[in-house]
């Protein structure tokens, strides 16, 4: 505001008109450059997002026309065969036998990410509350370091660990016990398979999401005003009662936001899931132990094959999957941000004056 006013007030040209004016014009010129750089930098994220959305929509159009609503209802996702003459459908060409039914992938994405977040949230929140109430500061920062290390492990490492170590172990020792719950939750009935499937993927996702949710929760708990907690402590309430009466209500909405952010991560996670989930592209698994697939893992797993399709419709189908994933991610992210905004609006109303 000030910069613009000054620029207009003097002269549109930066040419120096004396010693003082000369120095001022340098400042103005610097301001302009800064302005321009800032404007461009500010536009980059917006432009990149718009560009991605446009490219995805345009690339997906052939597949959208080819399958119509079949994309959301069909249960077989097949790229077809490039060794047979292509087929024509709705005025489009696709490889022989191609079928772009993505419902199992959409469901697989939601089931894995929801199980993951459903496990990760109580573990993170319970853990953080217990640690912040019971452990001294120094031990807390030591454990925080571990959380950050956990967050920094590349997902491909989680994938390898999941497929070679964790999955087989669970299938051999834990899943057989879980089948006992099959009478309550039918999806937990056997057979348990070899450890590559929905449940193993969900559990590994949960481990990957815990650092995100836990770190956010830790910040929220730290931001609970001391004054609010002391109100409970001064009434002789225990730490446990204080957590229940003061701390948890203060962080509740924030934890919802953290859960949504963590869920976004679980929705989009690709490599670990691709390794672990078993990559089945036709139909649904009969229980949670068996192989399935997700949207992101399908893109990564079938891209190679899709690139051999000269009609381009296979790639377009993957673009449509990407578009669906993008929409889901944007929606969860926006929802998370809305919740966070609401929380910061309420801004911890302790001690608000008259």
């Amino acid at each position: 505001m000030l910069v613009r006013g000054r620029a207009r007030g003097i002269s549109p040209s930066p040419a120096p008109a004396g010693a003082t004016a000369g120095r001022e014009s340098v400042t103005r010129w610097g301001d302009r450059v800064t302005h321009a750089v800032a404007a461009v930098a500010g536009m980059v994220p917006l432009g990149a997002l718009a560009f991605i959305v446009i490219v995805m929509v345009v690339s997906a159009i052939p597949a959208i026309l080819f399958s119509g609503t079949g994309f959301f209802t069909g249960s077989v996702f097949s790229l077809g065969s490039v060794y047979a003459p292509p087929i024509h459908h709705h005025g489009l060409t696709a490889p022989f036998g191609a079928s772009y039914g993505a419902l199992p992938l959409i469901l697989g994405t939601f089931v894995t990410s929801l199980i993951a977040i459903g496990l990760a949230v109580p573990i993170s929140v319970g853990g953080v509350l217990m640690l912040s109430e019971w452990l001294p500061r120094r031990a807390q920062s030591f454990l925080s370091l571990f959380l950050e290390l956990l967050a920094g492990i590349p997902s491909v490492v989680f994938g390898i660990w999941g497929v070679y170590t964790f999955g087989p172990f669970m299938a051999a020792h834990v899943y057989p016990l879980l089948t006992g719950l099959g009478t309550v939750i039918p999806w937990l009935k056997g057979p348990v398979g070899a450890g590559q499937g929905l449940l193993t993927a969900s559990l590994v996702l949960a481990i990957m999401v815990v650092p995100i949710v836990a770190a956010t929760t830790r910040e929220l708990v730290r931001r609970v005003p001391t004054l609010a907690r002391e109100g409970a402590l001064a009434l002789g309430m225990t730490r446990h009662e204080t957590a229940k009466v003061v701390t948890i209500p203060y962080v509740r909405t924030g934890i919802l936001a953290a859960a949504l952010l963590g869920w976004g991560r679980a929705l989009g996670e690709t490599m670990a899931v691709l390794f672990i989930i078993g990559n089945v592209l036709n139909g649904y698994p009969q229980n949670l132990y068996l192989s399935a697939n997700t949207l992101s893992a399908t893109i990564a797993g079938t891209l190679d094959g899709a690139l051999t399709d000269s009609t381009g419709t296979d790639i377009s189908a993957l673009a449509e999957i990407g578009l669906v994933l993008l929409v889901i991610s944007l929606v969860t992210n926006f929802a998370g941000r809305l919740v966070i905004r609401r929380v910061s609006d309420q801004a911890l109303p302790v001690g608000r004056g008259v």
Partner: protein
Amino acid sequence: MSEAMGLAGTRAESAEGTATEGVSVRNLGVRYRDRVLLEGISTEFRPRRVTAIVGPTGCGKTTLLRSINRMHDQAPGMRVTGSVSIDGADIYAPGVGVRGLRRRVGMLFQRPNPFPQSIADNISLAPRAHGLVSRREAAHLVEERLTEVGLWEAVRGRLNASPFHLSGGQQQLLCLARALALSPDVLLLDEPTSSLDPATTEHIERLITQLSERVTILIVTHNLAQAARISDDVLFLMAGRVVEAASSRTFFNDPGDERSRAYVSGRIG
């Protein structure tokens, strides 16, 4: 009820005949790491009287107040030496639990800090946690305490609503009612009206005077006029030490220490 609920040591000491009523502080020292916050504090707070703790900013008023319900226990790096006795029983003696102590010693803070719970729960949660009332009796207690602080008419229709929609003054009254719900013997007030409007301040001052008929009250205040209005006794601190402990009348009219004289007349502050 409050007599029956005394500290574990109270009755034993009364039997020995050494019990003195009120709050007695003996050679109290408080350090935060290497810094001395309070040193050599020895004083008596008379039972069922209002004692104003005054002094310049940073002189240790709040630190002293928080020694009396052991709020320093939670803070790492805080070290308390010496002793504080309530009705003759040392509250820092081994085996004395802060839970029972804080049941008897209520506290009101500089700014209102109601629980993020309903208005009714703000009153009833602590008594229920201490097992003083049943769920059924709680409703009666809520009305009784809110009536006592003059908030009942204003909130009776929205007992299940959040307290954060109340004005700051109403929130502070709610916190007072919350403290009173445990029937404390001692009330620690840490500048309870510093964030409030004059009308609510006057209302709270009147309540303090009424409450002093049954509760020992210690109030930290920056407002000398307030101290003069409501206190029976004054404790004047400077730099973590007691300068003067006297009745209000003496302190404000004929202080015994030159520094008190300077403080009362506004030359230091």
